């Protein structure tokens, strides 16, 4: 019996569905909606954005870009619900500051001020709170920013898990470089600022549900000083940056590929990964490409500036292991392909489900 459609037609239909604004049809919120992958995208684009529709929100990038009296500002917010709140390499307080600092940084903005709203569970030990506030203060200092205002609420035991933090940040863009996926074009090189997968794996291990002991720490760190050097070195040849948090590098590459309607091709043997993360990933059944990072960014630069970009990143402590991992092509538009270590290829799609919830 002949098929209803040709293979090509079926393929086109699938690609068209991928690009459609996702519809949100679930009756209830599930953990998948918080994972940073397809379900999160459906939640934001299918439920939230349509109700709040406005020009500033539309690009849905890491920060909103505002022009106030001629001053270009970046404005961003992030919620932190990581479990457990302390883990190798950091804690929720540190994450809360660095996360927002980095959203500003990848938007090209020098972080200026942060606010912090704390939601505390009844029964939380004061000593724990003291440690987290100190961690926030230390991270703010290291990030060159201050926590200028905040709020505190307490909820009944069981209504939240120890503590949640929401930070909002403002940064100033005092250069002319426009950073947006629309500037990414075929020929651009793709760079990553260091080893990937560390944070998510560290969290997984810290949850202690599996008997693994491995030396993996979260990579949480502020990225502004590295970004500053990158902008100084490349100027407008720097086209776009994203920080690779939930959903990992794979999700970020897909977002850019779709937004810019370009193909992205990477080589897996060029992507920096610590052996311990690869090993733990194999045991846990997770691939570092999809795992959240808290101190890494992906940058798209014009080919001729790639060398300078790499040098600039490596000159900063946050980017010593930066690498060029791939390039942008015309085909296949909206898709990410990778050359495997085996010399074959595979498609890299964005995260679908929720392998590591409450990762940040």
């Amino acid at each position: 019996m002949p098929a209803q459609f040709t293979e090509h037609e079926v393929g086109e239909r699938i690609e068209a569905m991928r690009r459609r604004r996702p519809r949100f049809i679930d009756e209830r919120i599930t953990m998948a909606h918080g994972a940073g992958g397809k379900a999160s995208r459906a939640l934001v684009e299918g439920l939230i954005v349509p109700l709040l529709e406005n020009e500033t929100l539309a690009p849905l990038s890491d920060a909103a870009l505002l022009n106030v009296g001629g001053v270009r500002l970046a404005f961003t917010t992030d919620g932190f619900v990581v479990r457990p709140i302390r883990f190798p390499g950091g804690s929720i307080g540190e994450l809360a500051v660095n996360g927002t600092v980095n959203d500003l940084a990848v938007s090209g903005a020098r972080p200026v001020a942060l606010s912090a709203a704390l939601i505390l569970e009844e029964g939380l030990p004061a000593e724990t709170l003291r440690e987290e506030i100190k961690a926030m203060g230390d991270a703010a200092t290291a990030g060159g920013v201050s926590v200028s205002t905040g709020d505190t609420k307490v909820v009944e035991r069981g209504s939240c898990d120890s503590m949640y933090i929401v930070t909002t940040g403002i940064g100033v863009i005092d250069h002319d470089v426009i950073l947006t996926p629309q500037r990414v074009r075929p020929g651009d090189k793709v760079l990553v600022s260091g080893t990937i997968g560390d944070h998510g794996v560290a969290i997984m291990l810290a949850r202690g549900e599996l008997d693994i002991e491995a030396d993996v720490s979260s990579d949480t760190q502020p990225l502004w000083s590295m970004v500053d050097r990158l902008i100084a070195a490349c100027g407008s040849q720097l086209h776009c940056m994203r920080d690779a948090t939930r959903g990992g590098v794979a999700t970020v590459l897909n977002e850019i590929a779709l937004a810019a309607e370009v193909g992205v091709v990477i080589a897996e043997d060029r992507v920096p990964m610590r052996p311990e993360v690869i090993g733990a990933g194999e045991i846990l059944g997770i691939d570092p490409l999809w795992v959240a990072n808290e101190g890494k960014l992906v940058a798209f630069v014009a080919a001729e500036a790639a060398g300078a970009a790499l040098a600039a990143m490596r000159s900063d402590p946050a980017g010593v292991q930066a690498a060029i991992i791939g390039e942008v092509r015309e085909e296949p538009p909206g898709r990410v392909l990778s050359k495997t270590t085996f010399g074959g290829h595979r498609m890299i799609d964005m995260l679908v489900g929720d392998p590591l919830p409450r990762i940040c």
Partner: protein
Amino acid sequence: MSLVPMSPVQISIDRSPRVSFDSVPEVCSVVEGCITCGDVAVPLTVITTDGSDARCRDDQGREEMVAVELIDPVVPGDRVLVHAGVAIEKLAGDGLPQPATGSGE
């Protein structure tokens, strides 16, 4: 680890380490695959034996108790292939790929 409430109905205050559904792998995820369907079995090294169980460790230092009564008696240092907490094979070498020589029996 605190209990994450699943729904308003559940008011249990049992705080024993119930493996929460948070860490449930995606069924047959594109990325990860499915432990059962993927027929995943891991080579481990025996550290100590304790009757019909043995404490085993993998190349990354992870340890688990493994039931070993389905294979010949093991001693510390032996390599075993483990699936779902049970050793299904004692490995002659280290279970790692050797340069391919021949085939079959």
